């Protein structure tokens, strides 16, 4: 696994001001595992 899949990092602010970060990986979007 020399080439790692692209990762999408999305940072959002919750209603109370705390942050939440979502990590989405290209390989998992393809449904492989």
């Amino acid at each position, binding site marked *: *696994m020399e080439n*790692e899949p692209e*990762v999408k990092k999305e940072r959002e602010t919750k209603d109370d001001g705390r942050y*939440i970060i*979502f990590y989405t*990986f290209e390989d998992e979007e393809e449904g492989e*595992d």
Partner: protein
Amino acid sequence: MNQLRWDPTLREWVAYATHRQERTFLPPAEYCPLCPTKPGGFPTEVPRESYEIAVFENKFPSFAPNAPAPEEPGTSLTPTAPGRGICEVVLYSDDHAATLATMGERRIHNLIRVWTDRYEELGSLDFVDYVFIFENKGEAIGVTLHHPHGQIYGYTFIPPRPAKELEAAREYRKQNYERCLHCDLLSQEHEDGRRILIGGEHFTAFIPFYAHFPFEAHVYSRRCAPSIADLGAEERSDLASVLKRLLVGYDSLFGFSLPYMMVMHQAPTDGGDYDGVAHFHIEFYPPNRTADKLKYLAGSETGAGAFIMDVLPERTAETLRGKIEAR
């Protein structure tokens, strides 16, 4: 309220976070705050219908980025300080019933990339001197939520146990021609072989010669990498494979999902030079000594700091290695 109080007898900080008394305690699965928010359902911590891996600021943090000066002023002998720091929750999956052991290697590999990102981002904050990545799993450890997750603390100081380990490594290096303590320990374990659990290409899992818990396992980078951020893609891949095999082995030991504490030790982020001193590794401390008996930290362990073990690491390594190799 987040506050630090100095214990001058042990020369260490104790953190007080009284609001944590109110935190959610073992809710039923349908009210899990770490599951995704479903249409028409109650709002959880995660405002999405699904996710892969997510990280958010703990609602009940032991430390807070903007902790105010403590109301209790302390004294010159026992000073206080703001309970400043960062506390994050890392959600491994949106599947409530999953554990790290049941996840595929790919998800574990991706989780390692998330841990790396958090180490780098939190470590870049000027007030964070140590990024501590850990997981408490199972009610025997005292978890309050079953959903698969870990935590990250960004401390404003190097906590006592890693500090003691770093001091030992620095002293060893000084007395042994600049050699790395952890590299030499790993070489010794490989030469002996009796306590090796998994020998990966880049990582080795073993029960240390001086284990403090019956099935305590350490996962060492074979290269002297100071932190998780120093690993390459192939090393992350191998680490995922070694972790998967170790965790599946753990769950095979007694026929149930084994509780454990998992902690990472690596280079502080205080701007110091830790090459050849810090050596990235992961330590697992499962409390079980048998299926129905736990290793308690009782009088000698808690009051004297002296661990008493009733089984040798060579014996437990043989048992656990058999379970790992049988899978």
